[in-house]
């Protein structure tokens, strides 16, 4: 009965949505306002102004860099939140499900994973570094990097993971994305420009572009590394089992 009422309510919701959908600009029409109002500038000037052939990357890092700064903050917040709820894994008190399970990982799996992981990491690095010319970028690469760590932890256990990446390394790297954004932003302030400005008219033409390239790279790498490490940390926190 309750279910049915909810169903009815949501059906009405859907109809309301549809009534709006009917009025929306036709799907995929180049003449839509969305394609005429702000975007043409991105498409026409994006490569030159934004500094990336992949215009999405240009928008993410340059035009709407502040959003991305918010984004990396969100994932940093998620990590802080997970740690607030579950605490960080600890060599002394934590163990993993793998260690507690009666059947260890089989030889085949461990060998394959050992072979595979370098390639996954390589792919992650490629994705991060080539974000400006091809699909991908810091976040995508970071996710892949994180996935590789998750993979590794899943098979070899938390302790090995903790031994490989120590806390003193992990903590600064988790903050790396926000900090790299801040550094890139403050470079703009240093040259008397607005926060997160990438082109400094005060410099010569070549220096400007070189600096922009360096800043974009810094941010990309920062995001990539931080995302990967944060995913790893979140996973480790979720996976750890308190040793009794």
């Amino acid at each position: 009965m309750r279910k049915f009422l909810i169903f009815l309510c949501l059906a009405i919701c859907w109809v309301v949505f549809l009534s709006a959908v009917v009025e929306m600009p036709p799907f995929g029409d180049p003449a839509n306002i969305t394609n005429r109002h702000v975007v043409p500038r991105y498409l026409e000037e994006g490569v030159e102004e934004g500094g990336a052939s992949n215009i999405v990357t240009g928008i993410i890092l340059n035009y709407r860099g502040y959003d991305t700064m918010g984004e990396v903050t969100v994932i940093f917040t998620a990590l802080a939140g997970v740690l607030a709820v579950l605490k960080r894994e600890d060599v002394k008190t934590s163990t993993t499900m793998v260690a507690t399970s009666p059947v260890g990982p089989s030889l085949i799996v461990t060998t394959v994973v050992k072979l595979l992981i370098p390639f996954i990491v390589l792919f992650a690095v490629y994705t991060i570094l080539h974000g400006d010319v091809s699909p991908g970028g810091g976040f995508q690469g970071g996710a892949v990097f994180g996935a590789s760590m998750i993979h590794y932890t899943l098979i070899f256990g938390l302790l090995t993971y903790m031994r490989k990446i120590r806390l003193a390394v992990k903590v600064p790297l988790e903050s790396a994305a926000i900090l790299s954004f801040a550094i890139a932003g403050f470079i703009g302030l240093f040259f008397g420009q607005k926060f997160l400005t990438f082109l400094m008219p005060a410099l010569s033409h070549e220096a400007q572009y070189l600096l922009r390239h360096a800043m974009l790279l810094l941010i990309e790498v920062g995001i990539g590394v931080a995302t990967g490490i944060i995913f790893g940390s979140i996973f480790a926190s979720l996976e750890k089992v308190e040793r009794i």
Partner: protein
Amino acid sequence: MIVQKLGANFNYVIATLLFCIGLFTVITKPNLIKKFMGLNIMEASVFLFIVSVGAVREGSAPIVVKGMEKGVQFVNPLPQALILTGIVVAVSTTALALALMIKLYEQCGTLDADELKGMEE
């Protein structure tokens, strides 16, 4: 007329439908993990909606390759940039929610919303 319009905007129809399915899952399923899968469905549906807003028929991906002739119709890159942020937000929310669920299970021994409500009193 209306059907034709809806047919033309089929992506939006599906996105809003998925939104409602997700919401239905969230509200009616007692299991918290299931609720959260519903929420993820909702999230993805909203993303689908926004990407569809930016889609252009026969448009190519917004990556400028050297030697490309002028006047190529690109799709709208802005929604894509937004959704990239959106996906991160979604996965962050999921991670936190799952952490809470694990904690909740440690404390209460169940993830059933009805049983948890009973414990609250």
